[in-house]
Each structure stands twice: as structure tokens, then as C-alpha cells.
């Protein structure tokens, strides 16, 4: 299916930059965008510039005192240890110049995507600069300052009163967004991630199901380290379909961290590009089944910036606009432009060779355990709709 979609981008998004050694790098957005341009699937006319989120918009989710602290920090006015209570000034989330403005553009980009879709201008929108799911009400964490998804969902709730399904495929648990709507029955969150036994942030257990009126509207699939494509997709597809049917959303927001890949240096999942073809395809299909196509996709984590993230993110757009992912060779122009700068050899095809995944001796056990996680996570949806 061919659909109208908007791609949020401007250079203003590139100001979100901690330092040269930091694993979170907005260059990934540029690489994905140029890959699409080289493949002739992104037209200038489809690009919309992000607005800058206002302080009132940020305050839909964030504490005013926190916003003030971020502003001060970005102007060099925060005392030495003054940022620590707000989670900034650490190795993960260092202070950088104009961090408030830069972060406001990322949130604004997601709001711009929301407005493009909810004004009826397009069916889908993609903001690869967003997806900062670890941001808390008054604390930065895990490379995330303002939580664009949480702000955008509050915005949708207030301005449009729609039921939102938030789906997070980053290898880290989508904790900031989950806790933000933990009591809200109109926002359903689903996160699939590597178990928090060892990996940051440590949360995202199956038994985190929401509280009070929100009970039964938070879903978690904590899968085992070394999980491979088939098992990942088996539990993810079943959960997403079942939850969409149970919740009947009006709009779907997906967070598309690309750090579950076997090349990713920060996680221990063992997926290949195959999951990054299926993930947007499912979101696309379900948004048309339940939401009249209303689907907003965001970026997120992903720390193999050269081999993994550009292809994974480009496929979201390919699916959004053509209904299909790309096959075959990566455009020569893109390869020759970036190979010089890349410290690793760039992939020549859209698909991965299955052999890049190391042999996992406990594959059978892992698959079985993940399936148990699925059954346990969906225990209550089954009860409700049968």
C-alpha cells in the first residue's frame, strides 16, 4: 500500500550532541536520510521541519524546575554538582552547550509529526531524532533529556483525546514512557527488550502491568540475552497483534531503537536486519486495521551507527511510503560517500547474511523461555476478550 507520509528533519536536530566519544550520535539521522535520498525513496517535498517545543509543551510532562535546570546547564550557569539531582553532568548524559534548545527541537519534531498526522495531512510521520524514552519527569537518564514520546502522548491526550498505543522495540526497556502513563487506561504501552537482569535500566518485568485504572495497560516482554530473529519476531508479532485487538487504539506511536542487532555494542541481543523489516511492516498493517493509518514512528537507541542504524531506520520510511522494505544492493553513491569516514566496512546490501550471528548454544532454551514470557505477558488480555 502506498501512503502519504512526512519525514521530520532539519539541521536544528543535529545540535543534540554530547561529545565526540559519546555513543548517542545524531549523525545516524543524517546517514539514514541520505541513504533514502540515494535510494530515491525520499523526496524533498516530503520533508517537514521540526518546530521547537515551547516550555509549556515540555511542561505537559516535565517538571518546571527540571526545565529551568536544563536551561541553566546549557548556558553554563549550573554549579559543579548542581546537575546530579537532575541526572545531568554524568558520563551518560553530560552537559553541553544549548542543551535545552537542542532537546526542545527533538520534542518539537515529534509534536510536528503528531500534528502532521492528526491534522489529516498525512497518514504517517517519522521523526528519527525522537524516541528518547528514558527521560523522566524531573530527571535525565540513559542519553535522554526530554522525553519526546511522553510529551507527545500527553499532547495527544489533551488536544485530541485519542487512545494511544505506544510500542517500544529498543533493546532497553522503555521505562520513562511506561512510568509516565502507568495509571492511565487511555495509554497502553508495550515494550520488548533484553531482560533487565543485567542491562540498563533493569526494569520491564512481566509483572509491571500498570496500577489503579491503568492496570492491564502496560505490557512488557523481557527477552533473554542472545535472543535471535525468529524468537524475537515470534513473541513480538503475537504480542503486538493481540494487544492492538484488546486495546483498540486510535493512534500508534512506535519507538524504533535499533540496538537489538548482533553488532550493537551496548546490548546482548542477536538480531539481524530481518527484524527491522518486520517491525515497521507490523506497525503499518495494524495502524491501518485499527487507527485509519494513524502511525507516528520515532528513532531511539542504536549504537552501531554505520552498519545497523541507517538501514534499519531507512526501512521504516520505505515501509511507510511504499508498504514494502527494500531488497538488494545499497546505493553505490551512499557507500562511496561514507565509506571513507566509517571505521568499519559498510554493508553492501539491505539484508544481512545470517552468518553474522555467532552460534548460540542455548538457542532452544532461550526460544522456549521467551515464549513463556509471551504467554505470561498476555495472560490478562486473553481473559478479557474471550
Amino acid at each position, binding site marked *: 500500500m502506498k501512503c502519504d507520509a512526512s519525514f521530520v528533519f532539519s539541521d536544528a536536530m543535529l545540535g543534540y550532541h554530547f561529545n565526540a566519544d559519546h555513543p548517542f550520535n545524531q549523525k545516524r539521522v543524517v546517514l539514514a536520510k541520505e541513504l533514502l535520498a540515494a535510494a530515491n525513496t525520499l523526496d524533498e517535498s516530503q520533508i517537514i521541519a521540526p518546530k521547537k517545543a515551547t516550555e509549556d509543551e515540555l511542561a505537559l510532562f516535565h517538571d518546571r524546575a527540571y526545565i529551568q535546570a536544563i536551561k541553566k546547564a546549557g548556558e553554563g550557569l549550573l554549579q559543579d554538582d548542581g546537575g546530579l539531582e537532575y541526572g545531568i553532568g554524568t558520563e551518560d548524559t553530560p552537559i553541553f552547550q544549548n542543551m535545552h534548545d537542542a532537546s526542545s527541537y527533538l520534542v518539537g519534531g515529534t509534536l510536528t509529526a503528531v500534528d502532521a498526522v492528526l491534522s489529516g495531512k498525512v497518514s504517517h510521520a517519522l521523526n528519527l531524532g525522537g524516541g528518547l524514552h*528514558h527521560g523522566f519527569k524531573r530527571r535525565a537518564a540513559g542519553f535522554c533529556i526530554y522525553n519526546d514520546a511522553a510529551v507527545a502522548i500527553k499532547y495527544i491526550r489533551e488536544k485530541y483525546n485519542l487512545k494511544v498505543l505506544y510500542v517500544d522495540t529498543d533493546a532497553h526497556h522503555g521505562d520513562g514512557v511506561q512510568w509516565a502513563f502507568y495509571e492511565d487506561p487511555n495509554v497502553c504501552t508495550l515494550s520488548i527488550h533484553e531482560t533487565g537482569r543485567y542491562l*540498563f535500566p533493569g526494569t520491564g518485568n512481566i509483572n509491571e502491568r500498570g496500577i489503579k485504572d491503568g492496570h492491564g495497560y502496560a505490557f512488557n516482554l523481557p527477552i533473554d540475552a542472545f535472543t535471535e530473529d525468529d524468537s524475537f519476531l515470534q513473541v513480538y508479532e503475537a504480542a503486538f497483534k493481540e494487544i492492538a485487538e484488546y486495546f483498540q487504539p486510535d493512534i500508534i506511536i512506535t519507538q524504533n531503537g535499533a540496538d537489538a542487532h*548482533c*553488532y550493537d555494542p551496548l546490548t546482548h541481543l542477536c538480531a539481524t536486519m530481518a527484524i527491522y523489516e518486520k517491525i515497521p511492516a507490523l506497525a503499518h498493517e495494524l495502524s491501518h486495521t485499527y487507527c485509519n493509518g494513524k502511525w507516528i514512528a520515532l528513532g531511539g537507541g542504536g549504537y552501531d551507527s554505520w552498519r545497523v542504524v541507517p538501514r534499519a531506520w531507512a526501512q521504516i520510511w520505505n515501509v511507510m511510503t511504499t508498504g514494502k522494505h527494500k531488497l538488494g544492493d545499497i546505493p553505490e553513491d551512499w557507500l562511496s560517500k561514507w565509506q571513507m569516514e566509517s571505521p568499519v566496512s559498510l554493508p553492501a546490501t539491505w539484508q544481512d547474511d545470517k552468518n553474522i550471528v*555467532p552460534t548460540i548454544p542455548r538457542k532452544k532454551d532461550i526460544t522456549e523461555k521467551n515464549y513463556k514470557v509471551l504467554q505470561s505477558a498476555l495472560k490478562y488480555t486473553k481473559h478479557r476478550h474471550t
Partner: protein
Amino acid sequence: MLVEEIMNPDVITLTPDATIAEALTVLHENRIRHIPIVDDQLHVIGIVSDRDVRDASPSILQKDSAEKVLQNELKSIMSHPVVTVHPLDFVEEVASIFYDEEFACVPVVRDYKLVGMVTEKDMLYTLIHLTGTNVQSSHIEVKVPHKPGILPEVASVFGKRKTNITSVLVYPFKNDPNYKILVFRIQTMNPMPVINDLRECGYELMWPNNMTGPKS
């Protein structure tokens, strides 16, 4: 950590002349499993568990005697004397009592008066907090020689990286008394720099290092 920090101070009690029927109602309505039995001075003179009540309750086959049995006083079925703890005891001492005596709950007594209760569940909740899994963190395990000064040595590696440690545990290493396992939960999403520092200092990591193949 002290018992007074984890105990529940709102305890539901009964007197020894209360009936089994009353105990059944109290257990059921409050969803609790133990009732301390106290006299009018709040001295703990016994304890009744849901199990004691169940064992004493008549089966449905003996309808005639049922009503009579349920009217028996609690002093006929309560356990006594009762093992109690003090608010200033350490939490880990209570854990030993639970383990050694196979209790699931102990009354807390100060100046001979009942002031609270600690259950196995409170104990486990405390344990969850002690391990630090309730805060955003990554988990790292380091194998170290069992010698003085090793903990600050390893911890300084995290300090140099401005990485906040949320919890530390020290485990024995299998059956080898010459080594210990230090378990850190640290507030970072990117443990790689710290991991590299630790390796450069010559420490052996238990996690993460059980990779099945190189992630290049």
C-alpha cells in the same frame, strides 16, 4: 538496616479468649496470615496462624460439631511461647530466624509491648531494595582476590568515570576462599568505558564476558 524501618506498626491482634470463629473472620477480612494474641497490657502471649485455624476448623462432613468447635477459645490452639524481635535488631537477624525456625512472621516487642510485625514478604521486599534492582542501573560482576582494600580499589574505577553506584554486593566465589565476586549496579546505560577501565586494571569480569562469540 533495623527492624523498626521495615516493620508494620499497624498490627491486628486478638485476645486469648476470642473464638476460632473470630480469628477466621479477622484473617479473611484483613487478608493476613498471622494474628498475635495479646493480653490487656499488649504483652504477646501467643500467635495464631491461618494454618492453626484451618487445622482446628471442623471439616464440612461434621456439621453438627462445627458450630461448637468454632466457639473454642484461641488459647486452646495458639502457639506459645512466641519468638519475638526488638525494633533495634538488624534485619538480617530476622532473616536467620525465618530460615532457622521456619517462621513466616515475627512480632516486634519493645518494653514487653507489641509494637509491630515483620513478615517474610517485608523481608524479601527489603532484599529487593538492598540488591538495587529497583533503580535504573546496569549490572557488573567482578571477580577479585579476597584481600583488604580491594573494594575501594575497584570502586575508584567507577568514581573516576563519575559513574554512580546504586548498590554493591559481595559474594563468595564458588568454593574458593581466595576470591570474591563483587556485584555492582551502576547508574549508566553505557558501561563500556568502565568495563574497559576494569579490564585494563587487570580485573576479571564475570558479567559481561560470557559472550558466546565476538560481537564486533
